[in-house]
């Protein structure tokens, strides 16, 4: 699980990809996912994954990107098994090479999805994402909630560790016992955590009041997103490629393995 999370972490970068407008990056990721959604054929999905790999190389995040994909392996396998079993349970189906292959294709497609998701997060900082949301006219309340979640999650994680340490030091043993007793043992962890979150919210509310949050309806912004020529070119190219992909899918008679 943590390998996936680490793959999704935000790092500032200076490559061409990093410097693209986050909205363009979002569109590219979505188009790649949509392309993968259109096809089940292994060759096309592989092309999509290769494109994503190339993007990650240009963005110099290849190893981290690869780690996400690798980390998702358990999930992929789970999906494969679930889908295969589901197929078997359908009337008239039997254990055949065809059904195994179809389930594999589905699982493989999931890899393309996750990989494209990961590319986006590896090349976009939460700040940029916040700016993109604002530019897309998402109400500031929501953008602020998003940024705050990113801002305070590490702090809460530290707090959680701190509470676990303190309670273990009072003799609490979390590993022992059956499911029911184990759950009860989490009360000394969860109650302090909740209290901490509530207390923190109170302090934050004071601090934010003092920084005039919500004072004016028309909030201004220090930084604003502006599309550059590079952004427009990249965006257009992506849309063209995607259109080609649609055409091949629906209008051509070429059979693809």
């Amino acid at each position, binding site marked *: 699980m943590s390998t996936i999370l680490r793959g999704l972490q935000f790092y500032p970068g200076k490559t061409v990809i990093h410097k693209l407008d986050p909205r363009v990056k979002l569109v590219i990721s979505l188009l790649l996912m949509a392309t993968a959604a259109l096809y089940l054929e292994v060759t096309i999905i592989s092309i999509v994954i290769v494109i994503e790999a190339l993007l990650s190389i240009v963005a110099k995040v290849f190893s981290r990107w690869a780690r996400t994909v690798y980390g998702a392996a358990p999930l992929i396998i789970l999906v494969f098994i679930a889908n295969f079993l589901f197929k078997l349970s359908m009337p008239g189906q039997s254990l055949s090479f065809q059904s195994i292959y179809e389930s594999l294709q589905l699982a493989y497609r999931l890899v393309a999805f996750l990989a494209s998701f990961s590319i986006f997060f590896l090349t976009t*900082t*939460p*700040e940029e994402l916040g700016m993109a949301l604002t530019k897309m006219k998402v109400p500031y309340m929501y953008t*602020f909630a998003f*940024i*705050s979640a*990113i*801002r305070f999650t*590490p*702090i809460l994680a530290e707090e959680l560790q701190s509470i676990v340490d303190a309670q273990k030091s009072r003799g609490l043993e979390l590993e022992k016992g059956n499911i029911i007793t184990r759950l009860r043992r989490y009360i000394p962890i969860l109650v302090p955590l909740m209290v901490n979150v509530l207390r*923190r919210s109170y*302090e*934050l*509310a*004071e*601090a*934010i*009041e*003092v*920084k*005039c*949050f*919500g*004072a*004016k309806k*028309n*909030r*201004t*912004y*220090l*930084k*604003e997103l502006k599309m550059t020529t590079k952004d427009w070119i990249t965006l257009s190219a992506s849309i063209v490629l995607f259109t080609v992909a649609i055409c091949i899918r629906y209008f051509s008679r070429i059979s693809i393995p």
Partner: protein
Amino acid sequence: MREVNLEINEGEFVILAGRSGCGKSTLLRCFNGLIPHFYDGEMIGKVEVCGLDTRQHPPYILSQYAGMVFQNPDNQLFALTVEADIAFALENLSFPRDEIKKRVNQALEIMGIEELRDKSTLELSGGQKQKVAIASILAMHPKILLLDEPTSSLDPFSAKQLIDTIIDLNEKHRITILIAEHRLEMLLPYASRIIIIDNGRVVLDGNPREILEKHDVIPYGVSVPRIVKVVTHLKKTLNNSLIPWAPLSVEEFVDIIRRWEKK
């Protein structure tokens, strides 16, 4: 708070002292409108800050005159980068972008943290976070800075750095300072005034030298610097007239003895 009557003039450097729970924090919150607007309870009497009656103006107006910095560095930084955090209040107040840019640059410079501009708020040390917190308040150009135990969670070295910066704000930029603190040794030599609060009442108010010399402040939970204790004993042993002074720091003490020696 009980029957508090106070007048603080522009440019003063005031220490609020007293034991935990005496009312220092409550008093501070009277100056920026958090009391009565943010807290429940009853307020009797009037507080005027820069001519504004705090009952008639909301905190977001008063905070532009009296900015507040809190104890916990993490619970007052909201953005992901230092620059964004300093701009936060100004964005909330709908300042035009150019003005925001100018003020952010100014604040970074005054606090001496230009090199932190693009850093993530998650990577900063405690002392750095507090400096950013002050910078983000300074961006609003307040005349008064209210500080509620800002060095509590810092190690002594970082605490001294922060206090030196705060002293600078008063000395060079004429910002009126009201600071509630337990760690007094670093502040006493510089402060123009100390107000000691006990049980919601102002029990002592005046020049730190006089107050510490003439009164026993220990029952009020105020820590007396060791220097002052040395001087008190010195006055008992030597002739009182030889010691008309009341040094508040090691440097002052040594200075006076040197001059004595020369004489």
